[in-house]
């Protein structure tokens, strides 16, 4: 049996600092919102000639008065991602096409064009925030119906931890937040909850079984009993996610990365946040028996 409980305090301090650092990052550095949430235009280009590079493209586009243009390689050497903020010119894509064809010859394939107006991006951001909030609230309700309040608190703190730290990591690394990241965050919420609930289920079962074991020990027993399941499921999920990350193409990369972070944090938080909340709230056999009596 691994003595997970020996490190409860240390990892609690770590988690609190991670959350604090993440919140600081989110407040002061902020998130790198993509065009879905910020509005603007995105163009994915494939050049048929390998001589074309980022700086020549950037120089060319900078002459077009597009405002702040970002040009990046996208995946391989001949693919580029161009982004700029909204402007009023309706024919801007046509003009870019003409301009690039003039300067570089007819060498470009416009693989993807996305343009999100300011009104739509504001709506998408709002509905993204609503979606995550509603998900958290529904999880809270579900767990509140299923478990005693001490367990609910533990699960919710673990959830907030996972969401905040994942977003904090995105802020730190400057990774782009777009619609698919919202989907990833929601799936993380589901996954983290799932992991926590499995361990909690065992804690509650053990609480009924053993009256003489203190919660500090009991959580450790429960974690160990469910450990192989926790690990196997994390591994298979990570295997699936890693294969999306490496082979699923550039578009799914951000999504799979967020999920990979989320699964790791989710697994960690089920052990080191959700359970320590039970310990700190001095949950005992009485907590679950009282509930049984009232039912």
């Amino acid at each position: 049996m691994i003595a997970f409980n020996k490190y409860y305090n240390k990892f609690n301090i770590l988690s609190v600092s991670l959350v604090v650092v993440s919140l600081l990052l989110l407040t002061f550095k902020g998130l790198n919102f993509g065009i879905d949430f910020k509005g603007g235009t995105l163009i994915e280009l494939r050049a048929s000639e390998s001589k074309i590079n980022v700086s020549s493209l950037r120089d060319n586009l900078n002459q077009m008065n597009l405002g702040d243009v970002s040009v990046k390689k996208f995946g391989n050497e001949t693919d580029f991602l161009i982004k700029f903020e909204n402007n009023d010119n309706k024919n801007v894509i046509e003009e870019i096409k003409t301009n690039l064809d003039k300067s570089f010859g007819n060498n470009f394939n416009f693989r993807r064009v996305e343009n999100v107006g300011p009104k739509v991006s504001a709506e998408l951001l709002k509905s993204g925030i609503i979606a995550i909030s509603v998900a958290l609230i529904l999880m809270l309700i579900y767990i509140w119906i299923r478990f005693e309040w001490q367990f609910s608190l533990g699960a919710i703190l673990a959830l907030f931890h996972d969401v905040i730290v994942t977003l904090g990591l995105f802020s730190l690394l400057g990774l782009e937040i777009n619609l698919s990241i919202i989907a990833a965050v929601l799936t993380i919420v589901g996954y983290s909850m799932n992991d926590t609930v499995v361990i909690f289920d065992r804690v509650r079962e053990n609480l009924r079984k053993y009256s003489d074991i203190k919660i500090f020990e009991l959580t450790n027993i429960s974690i160990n009993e469910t450990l192989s399941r926790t690990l196997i499921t994390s591994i298979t999920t990570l295997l699936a996610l890693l294969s999306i990350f490496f082979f699923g193409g550039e578009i799914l990369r951000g999504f799979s990365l967020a999920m990979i972070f989320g699964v790791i944090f989710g697994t960690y938080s089920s052990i080191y946040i959700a359970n320590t909340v039970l310990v700190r709230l001095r949950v005992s056999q009485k907590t679950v028996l009282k509930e049984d009596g009232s039912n």
Partner: protein
Amino acid sequence: MLYFSKLRIIFVTLISLIFILIASSNLFKFSNDLLNKKINLGLDLQGGSYLLLEIDNSPVVEQKLQNLTITIKNYFKEKNIRINNLKISNQELSFTVDNQFKQTVLDEFNDEESNLNPYYPRFKSHQLNIEEKNDLLIVNYSKQGLVELKTSSQDQALEIVRRRIDEIGTNEPNILKRGNDRILVELPGLDDPMRIKSLLGKTANLTFRFVASNTEDSFGTEKLKYEDSSEESVVSKRIILSGDNLLDAQPRMNNETNETVVSFTLDRVGAKRFGKATSTGIGKQLAIVLDGKIISAPVIRDTIASGSGQISGGFTFQSATDLALLLRSGALPAPLNIIEERTVGPDLGQDSINAGMIALAIGFALVILFIFIKYKIFGLITNIALIINLFLLIGVLTIFEATLTLPGIAGIILTVGMAVDANVLIFERIKEELKDEKNNLIAFDSGYTKSRTAILDANITTLIAAIILFFMGSGPIKGFSLTLGVGIFTTLFSVYFIARLLTVLYVAKNKQKEGLI
């Protein structure tokens, strides 16, 4: 938990076979009607254009208020009340009346029976609001009036958008209402939406008006720019003909001038008016105005009574074709703005499909390998259930002809990764049970029973996330939530029917064997 009746075994086998058949119908073409269903590929996979259009209703409101000024004047004239200082600004109409009539005017506006201001009993609201501010009376659209106006202009716009897109002939366009002032257009297979965008961006409001010879025109005049130059002309506000009078329009080659023109045919009313105008206006310039710009302003040389004519204006064949198309399909009630556009080229779509399939194959292989190494014979059982699960998932998506997007493929891969969770929970539980219980059958039975709540919990939490995504998400994200959500149900089926059935069959044969799992 371990008993399976013969009937149930047949049922499970049948279901599995049916779904394998349905799922594989995506790969092979079956002539059978029942199976003639396929998963649709989303725009991000097959390539195409997604356009969200917003109707700018402010010109409609202005126009309606403009019409209202005349209505109000005439309405109260009959009652011997003089309306003064009629003015429109900020979507509001203001006017003054003598103090003694103020109450009468207010009463007329608030009378539920009056024709002046229609009343909607269902919403307990008038079309227009009226209020008193200082000496002015201010009329504007009520909330309900505005909704009515928006809905009707959305209906009209939708019809025109559909006609224009049909004229171009893209395959299976999807044109839908969104809210009360938006229209969503999905155009599969279209990799360059330039032409459609420019066609949808034009209101195509066509009018024939005389170029004003003297500025004293009883209808008023306005200065308009030419389409192809910065020159301006003063044009009468009196409309001789509008696009509504057109029956047909076609691009033509004018043999005399060797120029591309748009020839048009007028309806009866239009032909009459056109004939009258051209007979009285010989020698005058007739401006052809499209969306506030003059295309050309030819001098009338002859009376045109045939009800057909030509518009010239330095067209290329393409621009003449487009103008003819716009004129045929009619004018939009209000300008449309493209507020969101997502276009994916067909080769990127194909790349995404390939990448998605490779990721699925590799992810699947890794999970299967891992589970087999971990659980041996029970791993095999889990893997068989997992493979059937995949067929079930694809089969359900096929039956509903769901749209598969790239995130949707990610959802399938993720389902593969998470689907083993339930079997892992069960097997780990059985292992624990076997520590105290020597009877395989009892241990397996209680393993299944005791893991049930945890499995249910785990799947409900994921389902909650999937449902929220489905209702809040758009496009590709919806595809993700769909596969994730459907995946939960197919997973539960494959775990509790297929994997359990195979487990039962195996355990029944190896009742006495020790260290079974």
